[in-house]
Structures are given as structure tokens and as C-alpha cells.
């Protein structure tokens, strides 16, 4: 498709850089870029411009002195909503002034409505919707756990499996801890991921495991795998200290990705 006489457009090159081309199309374009100096230069130029733009947006400053206040304000609003809801539940269900007959009648109507509404359809698997939020693990549940290892041991290891399979019991325990139905894994929505991957000294301790979504846009399990390989390489090249790499990936892997890989990944 991309013979030398028919060069890809800038839009196609951009979509290639952003991994937005279908696989087959991308492969053909890659072959063309490898053999066409002109298009290769175009690719470098577009990439460079795009990175300048990323830097520009990254350095934009907004006065966020009010940040703790904003968080406190939000927390207050959330608490108000939560309490408001609890109040109404408490008021309706347990107010002694309401007669037993009234409560019984309300419950019966509710039950009848529920049965009619749900009788004809299969019961869905309940997956807590906020489980999709696990872009980074909950620090309280998954602070990360590492074993004492030497650099030589890490860099000479031939096993490159970033996420060795954990036992089913551990998998279920991790999912339960995060309030997710373990059926979600069978739908390939999550993988039980190592916060600090074994190649950087991470262990299969439950404190080092969390359910990472495959989806969630850019910050998914695949992106983290890219970071893990990159950091391992940097540690073995002595570009980054092992302890530092462990700390960064356990602290906020998305920030580490931005720091070490940026948009190149």
C-alpha cells in the first residue's frame, strides 16, 4: 500500500505514532517507514512536535494553593451526601412511630415490584462499579513487597514473565479485598498484577498484588508492562538505582511512566 511512490499522509503517520492504526495497516506503514528516509524524517518531526506539546501542557502552571482546601471541600460534600442517604434509610426503616403495618405494606410493594422487574431476566454478576478505578492500587491494601535481591541476580535472570500466575486462592483473596467479583477475571477485565514486578524484586505477597484493569484507556495493564520492562533495562544499565525503581513503581506507577517513558511508549 505504501510504495515509495505513495507515501503515507501526516495523519496516517500521527495515527501510527499514537497506536491508532489497525494492526495490519500499522505493519505496512512500519515497513514503509523503515525503507523511506523522507517519511522517517516526517515521523521524527511529528513526534518531536508532539513531545514539545506534551512538555508545554505539562509545564502549564495553575495556582493550586487551594488544593488541600479543594479536597476537604469535596470530602465534606461526599460525607453530606453519604450521611443524608443513611439518614433517610434509617428514618424509613426504623422510626418507631411508623406502624408495623405501614412498614410491612411498603416492603411488600417493594418486593412485588422487584420480583416483577427481575423475574424474566437472568441475574447479572455484580461487579462493584468503582472497581474500575484501580488505575493505581490502593496504598493501604497494596503498598508493595520486595525480597532482598542483588543486581546481578536480577539482571542475569532469564525469566521475563512480568506477571507469573498466582494461586487461585491468592487471586480470589486479592479480588475480594478490592470488592470485585472474581468472575471479572474470567471476562478478562482485570489481571492480578504485581505492583513491583518480580524482575525488580517484587514478591507474590498479597501486599504486592492488585487487580489491574486491562481497559481504562492508556493507563492499563499493557502500559504497566512497558514500564516494567523499561525500568528493568534502566536498572541493569545502571541508569536508575534498584531501590529507587522499586520505590517509584510502588508509589505511583503512572507518574513513573510519565517520568521515564513519557509518550514514547
Amino acid at each position, binding site marked *: 500500500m505504501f510504495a515509495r511512490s505513495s507515501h503515507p499522509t501526516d495523519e496516517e503517520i500521527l495515527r501510527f505514532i499514537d497506536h*491508532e492504526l489497525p494492526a495490519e495497516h500499522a505493519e505496512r506503514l512500519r515497513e514503509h517507514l523503515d525503507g523511506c528516509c523522507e517519511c522517517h524524517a516526517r515521523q521524527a518531526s511529528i513526534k518531536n512536535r508532539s513531545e514539545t506539546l506534551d512538555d508545554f501542557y505539562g509545564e502549564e502552571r495553575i495556582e493550586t494553593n487551594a488544593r488541600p482546601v479543594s479536597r476537604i471541600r469535596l470530602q465534606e460534600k461526599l460525607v453530606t451526601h453519604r450521611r443524608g442517604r443513611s439518614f433517610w434509610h434509617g428514618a424509613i426503616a426504623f422510626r418507631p412511630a411508623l406502624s408495623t403495618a405501614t412498614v410491612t405494606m411498603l416492603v411488600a410493594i417493594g*418486593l412485588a415490584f422487584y420480583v416483577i422487574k427481575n423475574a424474566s431476566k437472568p441475574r447479572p454478576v455484580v461487579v462493584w462499579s468503582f472497581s474500575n478505578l484501580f488505575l493505581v492500587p490502593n496504598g493501604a491494601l497494596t503498598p508493595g513487597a520486595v525480597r532482598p535481591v542483588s543486581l546481578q541476580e536480577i539482571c542475569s535472570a532469564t525469566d521475563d514473565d512480568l506477571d507469573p500466575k498466582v494461586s487461585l486462592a491468592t487471586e480470589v483473596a486479592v479480588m475480594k479485598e478490592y470488592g470485585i467479583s472474581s468472575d471479572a477475571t474470567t471476562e478478562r477485565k482485570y489481571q492480578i498484577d504485581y505492583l513491583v514486578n518480580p524482575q525488580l524484586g517484587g514478591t507474590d505477597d498479597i501486599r504486592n498484588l492488585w487487580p489491574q484493569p486491562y481497559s481504562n*484507556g492508556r493507563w492499563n495493564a499493557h502500559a504497566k508492562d512497558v514500564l516494567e520492562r523499561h525500568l528493568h533495562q534502566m536498572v541493569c544499565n545502571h541508569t536508575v538505582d534498584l531501590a529507587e525503581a522499586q520505590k517509584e513503581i510502588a508509589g505511583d506507577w503512572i507518574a513513573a511512566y510519565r517520568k521515564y517513558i513519557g509518550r514514547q511508549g
Partner: protein
Amino acid sequence: MSFFTSSTSAAINLVRRFPAQRAAKDLFVEEEVLRLFDLMQTRLLRYAVSFGISVQDGEDIVQDAFLALFLHLQRGRGDDNVCGWLFRVTHNLSLKRRLKASRETVGVDAGEAEQFDQSSNPEESMLFSERYGRLQLVLQALPLKDQLCLRLRSEGLRYREIAEIVGISLGSVSASLSRSLARLEQADRR
């Protein structure tokens, strides 16, 4: 009658247990929402402010977006992509706020350039302007939708997500990005 009685008592038992379980879930949702707020509030604030509204209004919008997320999750509704969902809500709220501001005040867009960097120290402002002055001008001259596409791409969102947020087709996102980058290149050559 016996069925009615046993069902009712079971339901009452359920109702009695329910508030406690719900409270625990709500607390959990609240913690998750706050955690996500810490992660994303700056990104969303930047996005809101890029509509030309004040930082204070932007902060209100981000607060409202997270409150909406809390209610959304509390009602048991999920979304495969919370990040995209938050940007979408922030986008819609920012558009509304922008519209309201433009009705109330004439020439509100004139302040767009000052929305960023307004409170950093003069030295930092100067360094930023030196490095990115021309880029900033070219970006400001782009149509708002093109600016938003560039910004969302820079946030790491996929084209499909950008299309949903901005309300344009996938092809338009791709064309917009390519067109905008070409404009930046042309400006560089001048």
C-alpha cells in the same frame, strides 16, 4: 398468608442489614473517589480552565465532576473508563459554565491567555513565555475543538475517548490533530 409473612420478615431482615452494608460500600466509594481526585484533579482542572473560565470556576467544576462520580457509583452504575467519564463530565460542565459566563460578561474569552500561569512567580512566567511563547499564541488561535483534541491527546486519551468527550467523529479527531500539528509546524518555520 404464611408465604407473605415469611417473605416480609425476610425483607425486613434484609432492610435491617442493608443500611450497614450500604454504609460500608458508600464509605469505600468515598475513599476511592477521593483517591482518584488526588490523582486526577490537576489534569481535570487544566482541562476545565482551557475553556477560558477562571481557576476558581474550574475548581468548582472539578468538585462537581467528582461529586457526580460519587453519585454515579453510589447508584451502582459503572463505566469501563472512569478517566474518560470524568473528562466527559468536566467537558460538559465547562461548556455550560463558559456559556453562562459569556452571557453574563462581554469579552470573557479575552482572559483565556491569563488563565494559566497567572499566579506563578514572574521569573517562572518569563521562562515559560520564552520557551513556549510562540507555541502558546498559535494554540490560542486554533478553534476550541482543535485545542481540546490536542490537550486530551496529551493527557494520554485514545482517539475514541476524545471523540466521545468532544462530541465529534473518530475521523474528525484524527484530522483535527494532524491539522493542528501541521499549523504548529508552519508557525515554527516562519
